[in-house]
């Protein structure tokens, strides 16, 4: 099988709640996979399962032929699976450069702190943060923090990069810039799993889309086809529709 990452019948339960319920899909090398679904569908939980934050209750996660289901987060990170957080998680009192250098040093291939700083500077230039490299991370705006997360993830030299709502809360110019970056990263051969609420964004960069609803995978396929899937309209767009007009009537 040519899949780089394969999720096989994965379930993650919190008490009685199955946040992810028997989901299965593959990620091919160099692919941009859109992961969508209504709020609370289990998208972030699924990322947490893959990265070992909340190991799967049952099922298997296989990366590059190795079963990583029960591995620790830091081991998974070192193998080349990096992620950004929906709620940004910088090291607030460190400089922007140090934040990214940490990614290069601990998750990437940098041999020492000097190498890591050099690698980090490269990512800061790519993400347009070079100007603020020596400012503390807490001084950044939200858009800059999102880019910092992105730069940190890239500094780890990942083979799969999981982007958890990197565009949420950004204005349209900032979203455009982020999209350009995502495309460039994908062109360099890194697989991307993109969690996103902005459908326009998902449609414009994804090769393929999977849809989660109540933890279950309800559709998978080419972007346009998936959006026309009746189950998706019912679950995803239908839920929104009902919330908007149901209250008035």
């Amino acid at each position, binding site marked *: 099988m040519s899949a780089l990452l394969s999720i096989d019948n994965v379930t993650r339960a919190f008490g009685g709640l199955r946040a992810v319920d028997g989901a299965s899909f593959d990620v091919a090398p160099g692919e941009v996979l859109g992961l969508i679904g209504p709020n609370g569908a289990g998208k972030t939980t699924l990322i947490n399962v893959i990265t070992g934050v909340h190991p799967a209750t049952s099922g298997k996660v296989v990366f590059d032929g190795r079963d990583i289901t029960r591995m620790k987060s830091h081991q998974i990170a070192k193998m080349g699976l990096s992620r950004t957080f929906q709620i940004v998680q910088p090291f607030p009192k460190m400089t922007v450069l140090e934040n990214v250098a940490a990614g290069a040093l601990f998750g990437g291939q940098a041999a020492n702190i000097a190498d890591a700083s050099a690698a980090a*500077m490269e990512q800061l230039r790519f993400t347009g943060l070079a100007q603020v490299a020596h400012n503390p991370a807490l001084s950044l705006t939200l858009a800059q923090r999102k880019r910092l997360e992105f730069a940190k993830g890239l500094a780890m030299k990942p083979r799969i990069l999981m982007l958890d709502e990197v565009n949420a809360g950004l204005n349209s110019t900032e979203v455009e810039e982020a999209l350009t970056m995502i495309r460039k990263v994908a062109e360099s051969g890194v697989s991307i799993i993109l969690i996103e609420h902005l459908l326009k964004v998902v449609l414009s960069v994804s090769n393929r889309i999977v849809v989660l609803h109540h933890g279950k995978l309800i559709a998978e396929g080419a972007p346009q086809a998936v959006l026309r899937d009746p189950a998706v309209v019912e679950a995803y767009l239908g839920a929104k529709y009902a919330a908007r007009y149901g209250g008035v009537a």
Partner: protein
Amino acid sequence: MKNWLILVAGTAVLALLPLSGDNYLLRLATIAAMYVVLAQSWNFIGGLAGYPSFATAGFFGLGAYTSAILMSMGVPLLISWAAAGLSAVLLSAFIGGAILHLRGHYFAIASLVTVEVLREVVNTTPDLTGGGMGLNLPIMRMSVAEHAMFFYYSMLALACACMACAIVVHKSKLGFGLRCIQQNEDAANILGINTYFYKTAGFAFSAVFAGIAGAIYASWVHYIEPPDVFDILLSVKPLVMVLLGGLGTIFGPVIGAFMLLALEEVVWRNFLTLHAAALGVVIVALVLFMPNGLLSVTREKFGFRAKKGSPEVKP
């Protein structure tokens, strides 16, 4: 480089102190060196990793008892001191494995309990440790002046070793990783830092020097008992010193150690009946008005900041 120069210069000046011939001063300086060791030890786990450990007294007491027992069995001085350091490291690895997954207050309480448990273990094993009766150490055959000088230089050497270790660790991958853990442990883990290993290493560094300090102290005073070497103040003072001097800095613990010792002496002399309360008030005031320690105040005032535009990371 600058740090090494300060360390060498400071040590050279302090090494000349016995020339003064003042035994009170020498005794005070020995205690100061011991405080520096304890504060810097605490800084590894409390300052760098952000884990508020109260286990310092446990390491100190364990080191004191390990060396005392070995020496009463005829083991040479230096070997028993080294064994004390080793025993503290083993203890830190053992309890670290059990309590370092706890965070914040929970870790603080668990580490505090370590001290109490060790104290009780000593109390209930009189055959080995003398229990509540305490333990006498062999008297060393040297004059009073030689004795004072020997222990001053021993403690000073340990303080130097501890400082050198701190300088190396602060610049190393370990120090960087610990600072990441202190800032955001979940993010550190996701970034590929083996947080469990890093924290345990930090804890071991905080144990080894405290353990040896306990051993030197025991040889110095010739007699130890549980309430003396497992004194909870030995856990609290290092923390206060680091807060006074500057959390997570290299020389903050040194400044804090000297400040606390000076405060103790001044307050002790002037408020004999109220000294504990007076010291408490002073500490509360200092922590309230200088929450990041004295070093941060001077930094803000005089603008000692990381140089802008330099591409290297300042650890």
